[in-house]
């Protein structure tokens, strides 16, 4: 660590320095809070516990914040208020029995969660979903991405104090897509739709036409959104230069998804892993240059437009055919001994499942790689030296869902 005295703002932008292995991690505090023996803070600092019940922690998340005036000098996230033992339950349930639980991980994006899990098990058991199922997966996953990003923008504006109006508009669009999901799977949020080697049911009659309708109408809404928000001076003033993250730190801290791409790192698993049939589609990956909240917002908005491109293409080209791999077994599904790590580009980042099979009907080890949790690693670094209003906005821009953070 350098000995140079850094002003708080520089601390936020400081280049990444790797501490010596084993050395306690030092953070760039401008003023080190005076800690008393029992760990509480003495002096002119104010310790505030933001959460677990707080309007903008997006669920039951808590941040123990030490404030100097309103400036943050220390921030420790506290997790576990929604630790629902997903992994333990899954290790005692059959492979298929965990599928509904994956819906409840990141409860905005059940389809992508399903897909990540199905993909992992398919890798483990050597299954290959048929063409039509791959198309359906891409369509539902991209619709999920739209739902997630549009709601995120709404919540972000809510955190900035825009009394719900953007959120209402976002949820209006979300409802339209949820109607599609409901027609497909019977449930609005918890779709439980994908299966190992395919999908549960085929598309109902008329679904594709409805989906095309939604996709056709969506850009108009996005244009509205962009006209009203992207150039709004208050939004720009609140977000530009706030919570900037350097690419090196982002990579080292395992940040993924739109957060990473807002730092200018071109890493989209749809392009890198080419899972599913993504290489057939023509889409681009938007990249930001500053890594601040505004870039994250804009990267998400632009990603929605790219998703629409994929959707249009997929809805046009979807073939007919079976939706399940004939090799897939529903009953008595026992993969061979082995292990697998499968991952997809979820709307929030890299969503991975790590499974160890001991040859039995239950996974021996079932692990979720939660993008939300790992993206929170750099929360403190982004918030130090900023004030409380910024903390709320930065947290909003990370886009966490507590079901996934705590599992």
């Amino acid at each position: 660590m350098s000995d140079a005295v850094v002003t708080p703002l520089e601390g936020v932008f400081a280049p990444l320095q790797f501490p010596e292995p084993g050395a306690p991690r030092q953070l760039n505090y401008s003023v080190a809070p005076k800690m008393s023996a029992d760990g509480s803070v003495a002096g002119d600092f104010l310790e505030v516990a933001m959460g677990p019940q707080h309007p903008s922690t997006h669920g039951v998340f808590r941040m123990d914040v030490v404030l100097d005036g309103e400036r943050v000098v220390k921030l420790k996230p506290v997790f576990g208020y929604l630790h629902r033992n997903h992994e333990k339950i899954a290790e005692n349930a059959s492979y298929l029995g965990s599928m509904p639980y994956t819906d409840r991980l990141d409860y905005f994006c059940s389809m992508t969660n399903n897909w990540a899990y199905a993909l992992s098990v398919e890798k483990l058991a050597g299954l290959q979903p048929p063409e039509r199922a791959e198309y359906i997966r891409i369509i539902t996953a991209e619709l999920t991405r739209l739902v997630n990003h549009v709601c995120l923008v709404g919540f972000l504006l809510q955190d900035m104090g825009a009394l719900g109006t953007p959120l209402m508009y976002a949820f209006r669009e979300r409802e339209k897509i949820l109607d599609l999901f409901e027609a497909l799977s019977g449930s609005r949020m918890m779709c439980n739709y994908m299966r190992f080697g395919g999908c549960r049911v085929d598309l109902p009659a008329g679904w594709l036409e409805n989906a095309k309708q939604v996709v056709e109408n969506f850009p108009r809404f996005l244009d509205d959104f962009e006209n009203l928000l992207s150039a709004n001076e208050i939004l720009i003033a609140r977000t530009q230069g706030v919570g900037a993250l350097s690419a090196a730190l982002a990579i080292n801290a395992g940040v993924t998804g739109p957060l990473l791409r807002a730092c200018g790192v071109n890493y989209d698993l749809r392009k890198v892993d080419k899972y599913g049939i993504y290489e057939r589609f023509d889409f681009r990956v938007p990249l930001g240059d500053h890594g601040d909240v505004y870039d994250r917002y804009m990267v998400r908005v632009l990603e929605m437009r790219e998703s629409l491109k994929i959707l249009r293409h997929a809805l046009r080209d979807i073939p007919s055919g079976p939706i399940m791999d004939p090799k897939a077994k529903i009953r008595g599904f026992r993969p061979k001994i082995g292990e697998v790590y499968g991952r997809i580009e979820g709307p929030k980042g890299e969503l991975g499942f790590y499974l160890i099979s001991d040859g039995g009907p239950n996974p021996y080890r079932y692990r979720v790689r939660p993008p939300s949790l790992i993206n929170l690693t750099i929360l403190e670094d982004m918030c130090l030296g900023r004030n409380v209003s910024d903390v709320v906005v930065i947290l909003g821009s990370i886009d966490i869902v507590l079901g996934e953070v705590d599992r």
Partner: protein
Amino acid sequence: METLEQIKGRITAIIPGARVDLIPNECPSNQPSLLIDQEHGVRIAEFLRDDPQLRLDYLSNVTGVDWPDTIVKEKVKVMKLVEGVETEVHGVVERKKQGYLEVVYHIYSIAHKHGPVIVRLRTNDRNVAVHLPSLTPIWRSAEFQEREIYDLYGVIFDGHPDLRRILMWDGFEGHPMRKDYVEPDDYEYEPTPHDEVLERARSHQARNAVL
């Protein structure tokens, strides 16, 4: 990307004394892994991150796995006196296999867009020698995940900057993700006439009667 054998060879060449084993994976996923030793764990990790050919700059996933003590039955041939004659007899010897906790790291490279390289670290046993080197100084993404493994499995990561419980509360005892953790008996089972379930339901009811 290099194969794991090549990586293994380079590690052992560069870091003297490092023990690296290749763990095969026979299932269709074909993701073999490297078992590295505790003493050189951090050095090896640093090599993996900084080596210009590998540049594994992105640690995606850290997983704890619990392998409890197992009883291994082995067939052995023993010489035994049978009716005064020493003959070879097939016998079964039960041997306790020491369990251990394992931590699995899935590492990718964003710079070269390859991966994963899977690295494993194992503790010596499950209760006392549960120390492992922390890789958080190398990859910060391990910070919360190693805390989680400490919380749920009880692996103590030496060199972790802030090793506290993350999901459970501070006064919690035990490590709930271990295979032998006994959960508090606090819910009713559905009335299925299943032997084991019925037994648990009865004991639950008896406990509630005491309360």
